[in-house]
């Protein structure tokens, strides 16, 4: 994890450090183990094709968890994730880059907490947002 980011240092419109992912078929099976989701469209190509898919696809919930990592790594030891999530708008395939990104949309202080709101998303190699979402985190203040 990098240096602690503080509320005062963050500007609306600012992009947070990106996180690049690329899922091997092994990672999809690791995710099945980690999440308990053993649906075969994520590791059995024949099965996936029988359901009408082109091939294996990355679990939506894994992309959601990637966004969780993006935020966790950004807020640092003293920040906290309050809320995060995404919709599943496009499928991603294994062995292709999935770029996780976030942009600060709003800052506010309330009841002694310093909130930062963000748009977050994963994007495929064509730049398409396959999992757009939002997040709310708290950051420490220098005050």
């Amino acid at each position, binding site marked *: 994890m990098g240096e602690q980011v503080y509320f005062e240092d963050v500007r609306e419109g600012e992009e947070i450090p990106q996180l690049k992912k690329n899922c091997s078929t092994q990672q999809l099976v690791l995710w099945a*183990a980690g999440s308990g989701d053993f649906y075969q469209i994520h590791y059995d190509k024949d099965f996936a094709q029988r359901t009408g898919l082109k091939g294996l696809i990355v679990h939506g919930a894994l992309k*959601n968890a990637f966004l*969780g990592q993006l935020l966790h790594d950004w807020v640092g030891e003293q920040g906290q994730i309050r809320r995060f999530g995404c919709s599943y708008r496009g499928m991603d395939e294994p062995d292709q880059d999935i770029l996780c990104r976030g942009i600060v949309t709003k800052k506010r202080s309330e009841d002694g907490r310093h909130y930062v709101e963000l748009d977050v998303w994963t994007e495929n190699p064509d730049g398409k947002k396959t999992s757009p979402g939002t997040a709310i985190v708290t950051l420490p203040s220098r005050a």
Partner: protein
Amino acid sequence: MAQASSVVTDDMRALVGVEGAPMTLEVEKTNCRMFARSVGHTDAIYYDEAAAKARGHRSIVAPPGFMGTPVFHPGQAPTGPAQSRGYSIPYKRVLNGGTEYEYFPENGVICAGDTITARSKISAFEETEGSLGPMLITTRETTYTNQDGKVVAKMYGTTIQY
């Protein structure tokens, strides 16, 4: 408001807001590590108990999106949310629309050793006309309560049927 072509029946409307049977989730060091590893987390608080304690946590921290593993009993239908069970609709295709987590760290950060009780309910049925034709959007809300009776997280999920 029910339209002439609505697929939402009175029985379905009666399900809105009704909690399903609670589900027990176990948060342990091994499953926190497995989840973190499968995402690719690099922060030691998800793997190393000493590192987590040094950062003020009770034990290894559950990574974002991980609420523990449901207790599995073979041959027993999964308990929990009033899923699509109990009603049927004419649409054949199902999409997972999205997932959102809300955390209440002031009530406790979920850590290895916690036992979480999840309670789910359908919060709304919504019907729209999209590019794929008429669709039913079902939103569900799951509340995660720890062993001290504190609500530590909520999950909002959307299912699209068309």
